[in-house]
Every structure is written in structure tokens, then in C-alpha cells.
């Protein structure tokens, strides 16, 4: 029984089929969070980009066009999010909730309007992002499955972890993002353009979450399902929190959550325990992880999330 649940493929799944979306979305959220933007629209971004990627790849038969459309869609939605929440200073949480609700309704509408199908879209022409193994590495003991027939986006996601670390800690942009997130007033005093920095962070998040959405629909699966993001945007947000807002920590948390999704699917495949209860494992683990992160078993960092407030102090109502 145990070898069925914790099979050698599990690590490969934790990085690949279950983890890639989380890594991409988690890194995306990380940039906004570190810039002091509480971007809870990740879930909606994933769904929008998954839809546009599937639609474009399905009509053009070209995965690259799909990725361009998916990322483009996520960027447009991120722009709206930025304009309304930071630009117009509407309550950032409400804007996030609005975009998440909008994503669910709009994708269903467009799916029906453009393709005349309800809920599920799997055209024959749809091209998925290529998957391949890395010769040499794929025969490593233990780590082999991580490099065996994984999607190109999975390798990119893993490479983006050190890349994000370098951007965040070794470049002027990263310094600006961190300063703005730590203390916007102080950052402004030393001449950092707070708005512009936050805008860049939101757009970086758009690209990364957009890639995550592409993986959902034109990655290993090849098709769009109504509400297929299934809470993964929220799990990514929790992973970043558990990872203390660092790229490496976020990556490790994503492996943990991706692994618990893998465990859940392995249990369902092997008929261990009631299927429905096994299905809820990743969600339960997310809540447990959040509680651990909040309780400070993981070193504490000043977190805007803990108080559930927006990045900007709420304007006092009379």
C-alpha cells in the first residue's frame, strides 16, 4: 500500500504535473507580495490564461500561439487589477474577489459563445507544449523522474526559481520591489517610484501566472475545463506564505503541496481510502500549512496577510 502511494514517480509529479502550476503561480504572487501588493486575483489569472491558451492553441494548432495568448490574457487582467486597485485605490481584496468571480463566469460564456460547447473544450487541433526527457539526468537514482518526459514549462518553472532569487536580491529592480514592500514611504523618500515598481511587480506576476495557466490547459492535459484551476491559485498563495516569501522557500512549499496532490491522486488510482476524502488531502494540507506558517514555527516575517489588510492603509471612513 505505501509503495503505491509513495511511488518513485511521486517526486516527478510533485515538480511536474501537480507542482508546475503552483511553482509558477507562487513565484508570481511572490513578486507582488514582496512589492506590498496583496494580489488575491491569482486564481482568476490562472483560469483566464488557461482559457485563452486553450482557445488560441485549439484554433491555430500552435502551442506557441497558445502560450502568447495565455500570457497576454493574464497581462490584460493584471492591468485591470492594477488600474482598479492601485490606480483607483479601490479595496484590493474586493477587486481580487471580483476578478476571481469574473473569471469563472466569463470563461464559461466565451467557451459557449466561441466554440458552442458547455464546460469542456478539447479540440483535435489543440497542440500541447512539448514534453521531453533530459538524457543522462533521467536515469539518476531517485531524481530520475524529475527529468523524465516533463513539459518544457516544468523545466522553465524550476529554472525560474534561481532566476527569481537573482532578480529579487541581486538587481536594482529587486531592491526597489523589496523596499516598496517593506516601507513604501521610506522608498518614496529615497526616490523610488512606488507606483511604477508595484506596476512592474504586478506585470511580472501576470507573466508567471499566465504561464501557470498555460500549463493547466495546454500542458500535459490538452484542453480546457470549466473552473479547472480548482483552487490552485489559492494554494500557490499559501505556498508563498509558508515559504516565507522567498523563491527557494516557495519552491519547497510548492513541492510539498504538489506532493500532497500526487499522494491524493495515487490513493485514488489505487483505491486506497474513500476517493472523495483522498481528494481533499491537498486542501487540508494547505490549511495545515497556513496554520504552521502563521504560528511562527517557520521564522516570522512581517506579513500583510496576517492582518488581512490591503497594502495601502484603508482610507478612513469619516
Amino acid at each position: 500500500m505505501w509503495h503505491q502511494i509513495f511511488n518513485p514517480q511521486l517526486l516527478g509529479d510533485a515538480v511536474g504535473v501537480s507542482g508546475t502550476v503552483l511553482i509558477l503561480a507562487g513565484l508570481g504572487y511572490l513578486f507582488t507580495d514582496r512589492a506590498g501588493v496583496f494580489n488575491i486575483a491569482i486564481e482568476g489569472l490562472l483560469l483566464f490564461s488557461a482559457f485563452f491558451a486553450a482557445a488560441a492553441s485549439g484554433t491555430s494548432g500552435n502551442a506557441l500561439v497558445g502560450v502568447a495568448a495565455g500570457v497576454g490574457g493574464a497581462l490584460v487582467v493584471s492591468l485591470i487589477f492594477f488600474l482598479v486597485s492601485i490606480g483607483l485605490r479601490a479595496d484590493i481584496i474586493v477587486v481580487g474577489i471580483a476578478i476571481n468571480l469574473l473569471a469563472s463566469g466569463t470563461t464559461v460564456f466565451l467557451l459557449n459563445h466561441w466554440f458552442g460547447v458547455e464546460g469542456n473544450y478539447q479540440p483535435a487541433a489543440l497542440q500541447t507544449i512539448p514534453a521531453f526527457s533530459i538524457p543522462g539526468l533521467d536515469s539518476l537514482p531517485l531524481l530520475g523522474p524529475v527529468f523524465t518526459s516533463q513539459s518544457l514549462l516544468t523545466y522553465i518553472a524550476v529554472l525560474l526559481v534561481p532566476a527569481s532569487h537573482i532578480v529579487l536580491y541581486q538587481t536594482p529592480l529587486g531592491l526597489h520591489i523589496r523596499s516598496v514592500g517593506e516601507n513604501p514611504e521610506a522608498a518614496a523618500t529615497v526616490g523610488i517610484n512606488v507606483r511604477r515598481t508595484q506596476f512592474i511587480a504586478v506585470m511580472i506576476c501576470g507573466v508567471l501566472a499566465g504561464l501557470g495557466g498555460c500549463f493547466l490547459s495546454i500542458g500535459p492535459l490538452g484542453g480546457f475545463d470549466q473552473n479547472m484551476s480548482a483552487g490552485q491559485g489559492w494554494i500557490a498563495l499559501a505556498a508563498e506564505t509558508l515559504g516565507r516569501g522567498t523563491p527557494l522557500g516557495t519552491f519547497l512549499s510548492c513541492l510539498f503541496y504538489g506532493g500532497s496532490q500526487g499522494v491524493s491522486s495515487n490513493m485514488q488510482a489505487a483505491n486506497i481510502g474513500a476517493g472523495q476524502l483522498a481528494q481533499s488531502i491537498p486542501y487540508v494540507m494547505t490549511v495545515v500549512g497556513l496554520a504552521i506558517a502563521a504560528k511562527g514555527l517557520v521564522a516570522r516575517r512581517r506579513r500583510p496577510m496576517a492582518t488581512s489588510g490591503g497594502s495601502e492603509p484603508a482610507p478612513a471612513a469619516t
Partner: protein
Amino acid sequence: MNELVAAPTEEGDARHRRLAHLGYAILRPVLVVGVALLIGMAIIVYTGENPFPAYENLLIEPFRTWESFSAVLFYAIPITLTGLTAAISFRANVFNLGGEGQLQLGALATAWAAVAWSGLPGVVLLPLVILVGALGGAAFAAIPGWLRAYVGATELVSTIMLNYVAIDIASFAVSPGGPLASSGSAGVATAVIPVGAQFPTIAGSQFHWGFVVDILAVVFAFVLLYRTPLGYEIRMAGHNPNFARLGGVPVPRVILGAMVIGGALAGIGGAVQVMGFQHQYTTTFSGPQWGFTGVTVALLARLEPIGVLVAAILYALLEEGSQLIANNTNVDSHIITVVQGLIILFVTVQVTLDWRKKLKLRARASVA
């Protein structure tokens, strides 16, 4: 979040202000929905269809026949309760997005209790199973509430995650072989609840006496928020948590309270739906996801209990209207889902405009 609540103007006495506040709460939803509908009209024109028959079906047809109008009222019943769930917690600056899960478990608990105690006379059974539904929802809301209040884990993520868990638990319970599955038919459902625990329907329609529970809940929420110490503390904690803490408000307890009361109302929403319509719990009983609809409705009503009732009926009108559009016209009825999305985006923009206006007023006051 405070700016979501309509700002009282500085002129006028308290009574006048309260009236203006109420007027705001009732008029605003109508305005927002109106603008969203105008854009929906533009989209219908873009799709090459005539928008007028569609809008006749959406706005006039539901009032023509009792069959349609009763359907509107029927749809509004669960949405009002989940709307109150979101309104009460948002008022405390706690974002309970778990109405859906709380509704599901409330419904499941009610169905279980009604079947288990089917021997009791209706006059005892009916209120008792509503109470069980409330407890089911409240217990499930207590988990994220406690985690937020005493551990510090954000309720935004935990409530969403627990929605999935709730649906998994409920579907486990009623699947073949599950503890609450009906022994009879092969369907994924509990057994049918006894007649004593069912709400009778009104005048041969789907609309049922469960609406009385809605009215009571709206009154309860209004009294809670404006006439009780806990309500005052909820509003204080939402307004300015630091000031509230310094003023002696036990903020964590208030947060937990707002979550649990909201969860109880969502649980009642599930209970009333089961008692008035399906008469058994099925996993698909919350078709349009009333828990999430409640969030939209609460925002539309600017977190005012009485506004929630108005907004819920408006929202229900869109539900029924989209059915009629699908039945009677060539227009794609999914357009209504986009209109519903636009409504919530407008609410956020409108909140912003209010805030701008307030700033201007304040600037003028300081000049004078």
C-alpha cells in the same frame, strides 16, 4: 473595507443619516445592475442579435406570470442567507469566502437530522432541523474563524480550501456505501426527509414558506449589527481594529463570532433549500454555487442586511431572466454570467468613486 459601507454625509442629524444610509443601500444595487445591463445589451448587439426581446424576457416577463415571478422569489431564498453570511463577516473585516462549504454542510446536517428523527411531530422537527443546519454551518465556519482569530492564518485562503473539503466530505457521505447514502435508489443523495420537515410550497409554485426564515434572518442580522453590543464590536473591529483593541473590544473573539454567526446563516440557507425544494441532500443541490453568489450580493448591498434582501431578489431576477432568455430567444443566455461579473466589478469601482467624493467633501470643509 469600511469604505464599502455607504458613508454618512456630514450634514443632517443622525436619523436623517440613517435614512439616507438605508436609501443608499436599496437604490445602489438597482443602479449598478442597470449599468451592467446596458453593457450586456451592447454585447448582445455585438453578437448580432436583437437585445430587446432578450431584455423583455429578463426584465418584464418575470413579472407577467406567477410561475416566473414565484421562481424569482424562490431563487432569492438561499442567496439572501448566504448574502447575510458574507455581509456580517465582511463588516468585521473578515473575508468569509467559505459560504459555499458552510451551506453544503448545513444542508447535509439538516437532511441527516430530519431522516434520523423522522418520528418527531412536524412542529418540533421543523425548527429542530433548521437549528441542526445552523450548527453544521457554524461548526464548519468555526475552523477558519478560530485559525484567523487565534492563530493568524488568513481566512481568505482557508475558507476557499475548506469549501473543497466540505464538498468532498458531503459527497463521501452520500456516495454508495457512505454513512448517509440512501439505501434505495442508486442516486448520490441522502434519503428523502419526512413531510413534517418540509416547507409547503405556495400557490402551486416552487416558492415555499422557507422565505419566512429569510425575513427573520434579515431582521436578526439588522438587530445584531445595529442594536447589540456584539454588532457594535463587529462594526468597530471592521472600522479600525487597532482603535477597537485599544477601546477594549476583544477583537479575536469578535472575529470568531462574526465567522460563526455567518456560518450558521449559510447553514440555514442550505437547510431551507433542502426543506423547501430537493427534500434530500444531493451533491449538486447548490447548482449556481449560492455561497459565492452571496458574496456578490453582499457587496452589491454594501453589507447592509436590508440591502441584501433587495440585492438577492435582483440577482434572482437575473437567474430567472437568463432561463427565460434561453427558452424564448436566440440570445446566448450565458451573457447573464458576464453581466453578473460586471456587476461585481462595478461595485468595486463605485466604492472608489464614493471615496473620492468623500475626499473632496473633506477638502472643501477644511478650506471653509
